[in-house]
């Protein structure tokens, strides 16, 4: 209990000091048991950021020697974590010093939970990669460093931990530093994102160089980890970046007001600014920046505001408002790095939902360029990051892919903008978040084509364009001749990828009746293709293989493997123009 009468607390001074503090988000990374949670627990404990009842609740528990608090228990908050002595999911912790507020994401090291590490690092400005001094650089240290670099975490602090187990040896520290520096260079060369790394020898358990500089390592004269965290340049958005503002919601309380609610992702917006709404390309000027607390003269990232324009233009949720001087790229084809996060592996050509900024569009992975092999190796530092060819990506694997979107969206490169360059993929059947994506390049769609694609009539007959946007393909006829088993697989593969198909069997026999039937079949196929369907005309024979004709193109399939069938059929459909955007009418004879 405080007696307030006698202490000179001034709320205004206090709030002013609080306002002067900035916010730094950092995460931990590294292999299992390297001491990440222990380090965070120690950091919280030594900065007096934990309450007494919280310390009491963990005393005498955990994996440490009697009398020694197991600091990891301050963050390992799940029962399963305490039982198994490992971290399973991210723990978010908060503390502040006189200079700064910190949001910590303590992430798991176990390979199985790599996606949770990615979750914790995606919003981090800095990451502390831990390396166990007694074990050296491990494969998982490399994987985490790679992911941190891919996510463009700006600062990497490499804490060489458990120095107490390595006799506080300068040589050991130097050797690990050399190994890991080489690795970081290699990673930076591969991801194209240079990281700014700093090495520091610590013992999380004993508290050396965590908050207080240690006496145990006189050969190290640098700052403690906390001092480093306090001195990192603030990683907030630069105001001079081009404006990006994803519309989350249109606010229309009455006929007189129409505002676009969203968060400034980058840049600054002021009344009078010329803006473009993407992907439509419509332009206007900012009339007002509305907030509950009154109109603003300017708003910069990351403020959430409501924009009112000087004229009525058609804008809805999902549109990106950008500065007309420096617009984003409107595209339906993008190249991206993917971190795959689901037990069910990536299925090329299957339709996923892509969530980017404030919209969701159907997308398929049209091509996997390569996979980055980060699997366990006996000597992780010796391995150069040679790329391997891949037909899929499994859980925790990372690769570079091309995606085809069924509707155009406005994007930036992740390297230029962490919010408008990022996306997630969602599996439509399971609803799981299956991948995190970072855009490397986008093929700009000419404005005229984007406008055409976006044109969806609300009344009148349904157009081929609308069908294409919904189904992902144009109409056409495929003639399948040969193995019925392979033909069945082709139909199934197309069905599973969400295509709309119609299967017709050719009549057996000869004569007038046959010719009549064959003619009516042709007519049916023609009608269905004009209506946007993929028509499969199947002619069974005893062949072991299947010949597929599409327009003037042809492919021979001699396998029932769905993955290979998918690849070959997609190549054929592409050649035959059935996956191309519908600038032409559906089906020309």
């Amino acid at each position, binding site marked *: *209990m*405080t007696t*307030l009468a006698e*202490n000179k*607390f001034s*709320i205004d001074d206090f*709030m002013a000091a609080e*306002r002067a503090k900035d*916010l730094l988000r950092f995460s931990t990374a590294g292999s299992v048991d390297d001491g990440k949670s222990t380090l965070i627990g120690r950091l919280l404990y030594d900065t007096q950021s934990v*309450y007494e*009842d*919280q310390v009491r609740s963990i005393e005498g528990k955990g994996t440490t020697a009697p009398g020694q608090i197991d600091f990891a228990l301050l*963050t390992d*908050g*799940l*029962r399963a974590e*305490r039982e198994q002595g490992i971290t399973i999911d991210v723990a*978010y*912790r*908060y503390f502040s010093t006189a200079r700064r507020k910190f949001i910590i994401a303590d992430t798991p090291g176990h390979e199985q939970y790599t996606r*949770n590490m990615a*979750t914790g690092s*995606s*919003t981090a400005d800095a990451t502390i990669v831990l390396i166990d001094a007694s074990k050296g650089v491990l494969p998982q240290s490399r994987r985490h460093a790679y992911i941190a670099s891919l996510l463009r975490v700006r600062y990497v602090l490499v804490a060489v931990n458990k120095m107490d187990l390595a006799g506080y040896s300068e040589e050991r520290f130097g050797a690990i*530093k050399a190994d890991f*520096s080489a690795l970081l260079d290699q990673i*930076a060369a591969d991801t194209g994102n*240079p*990281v700014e*790394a*700093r*090495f*520091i020898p610590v013992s999380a358990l004993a508290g050396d160089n965590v908050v207080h500089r240690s006496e145990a390592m006189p050969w190290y*004269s*640098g700052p403690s980890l906390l001092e480093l965290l306090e*001195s*990192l*340049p*603030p990683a*907030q958005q*630069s*105001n*001079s970046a081009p404006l990006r503002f994803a519309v989350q*919601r249109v*606010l229309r*309380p009455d006929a007189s*007001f129409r505002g676009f*609610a969203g*968060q400034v992702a980058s840049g600054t917006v002021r009344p009078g600014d010329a803006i473009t709404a993407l992907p439509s390309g419509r332009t206007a000027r900012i009339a007002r920046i509305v*907030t*509950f*607390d009154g109109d603003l003269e300017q708003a910069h990232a*990351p*403020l*959430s505001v409501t924009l009112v324009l000087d004229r009525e233009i058609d804008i809805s949720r999902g549109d990106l408002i950008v500065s007309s001087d420096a617009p984003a790229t409107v595209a339906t084809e993008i190249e991206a790095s993917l971190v795959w996060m689901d037990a069910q592996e990536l299925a090329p050509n299957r339709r996923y939902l892509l969530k980017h900024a*404030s919209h969701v569009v159907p997308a398929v992975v049209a091509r996997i360029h390569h996979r980055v092999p980060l699997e366990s190796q006996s000597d992780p530092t010796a391995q150069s990051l040679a790329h391997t060819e891949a037909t899929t990506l499994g859980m925790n694997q990372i690769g570079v892919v091309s995606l085809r979107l069924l509707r155009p969206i406005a994007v930036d490169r992740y390297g230029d903008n962490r*919010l408008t360059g990022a996306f*997630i993929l*969602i599996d439509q059947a399971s609803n799981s*978040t299956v991948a995190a994506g970072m855009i490397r390049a986008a093929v700009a769609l000419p404005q005229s084509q984007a406008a055409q694609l976006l044109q969806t009539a609300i009344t009148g007959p349904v157009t081929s364009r609308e069908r294409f946007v919904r189904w992902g393909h144009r109409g056409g006829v495929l003639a399948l001749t040969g193995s019925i088993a392979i033909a069945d697989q082709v139909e199934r593969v197309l069905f599973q990828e969400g295509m709309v198909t119609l299967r017709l069997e050719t009549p057996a026999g000869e004569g007038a009746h046959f010719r009549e039937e064959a003619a009516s079949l042709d007519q049916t196929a023609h009608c269905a293709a004009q209506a946007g369907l993929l028509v499969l005309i199947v002619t069974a024979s005893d062949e072991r293989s299947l010949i597929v004709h599409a327009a003037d193109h042809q492919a021979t399939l001699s396998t029932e493997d769905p993955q290979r069938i998918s690849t070959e059929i997609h190549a054929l459909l592409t050649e035959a123009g059935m996956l191309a955007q519908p600038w032409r009418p559906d089906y020309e004879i």
Partner: protein
Amino acid sequence: MSVLDIFPESSSQPVAPPAGAPEPAPRLSQPRLSRLSHLRQLEAESIHILREVASEFERPVMLYSIGKDSSVMLRLAQKAFYPAPIPFPLLHIDTGFKFREMIEFRDNMAREVGAELLVWRNEPAIAAGTNPIALDTKRCCGLLKTQALLDGLRHYNFDAAFGGARRDEEKSRAKERIYSFRDGAGQWDPKNQRPELWNLYNARIHPGESIRVFPLSNWTEMDVWQYIHEEKIPVVDLYFAKERPMYVRGESLLPIEQSFVALPGEKPRMVKSRLRSLGCSPCTGAIRSDAGTIPEIIAELLSFRSSERANRVIDHDQEGSMELKKREGYF
């Protein structure tokens, strides 16, 4: 070299700083930065979340528990949709054991904000006389809070429910996503949470499933009070110290309410006290305090050695009890 060394000192060329010298300034040239205070950053993040949910779900609802966190969340909802009204109703899960002041405050608040207020009670359990003294607190909470919440959400068919929980409150909450996926029975599976990267939230659910959303995830108790101070947000009077009749049992101060069961011979005393966290009257202890204003509460907070929930009986029944309750569908 692609690994840049931008830091003030480099341990490869150790230069011992002179004793007492200030930290040298970083060498990086600093770009023009947005210097938003951390409260404005938290506010912007929360508003973004509120708008996403309101736009992506069919039937969202805000759980309104009358406490300080709910008060902040409600203000953020007003800000998120201004000048339009809040596009979802408020739902209060009433256990029948809430303080009288809380109920009055709730009704006034909803009227002032112009939001639709729904109240749900587990009437059969209340009629059967469920209370934490006859049952244990765990079973009482299970019936009057968890069961009532699940029934209420199902009754109205809500697919997303905002809660004012913060990650700094408790160590299993520290593990929870902003969009916390719940299966058809409202249960949380902490070992299998959806990845949640950047500010991209996955709102996809199957029928019957739901999402609990925590817009205040990254706020601390201190942030909440500072925001209440800056924004002049009204809070229930019970947060402010006053002479109040209390039963004093050892360290605990037990407020008197209609439901209180005194021990034989026990007499209430007037104690200058307040509540740090609002819950059900039988399970919420008061603290001795002189803090009668928000600045005084903030000053007092700086001196606390115990956590906010230390005065709550319910969280300590069992190791990991909050996690267990959440797995059963609790907030």
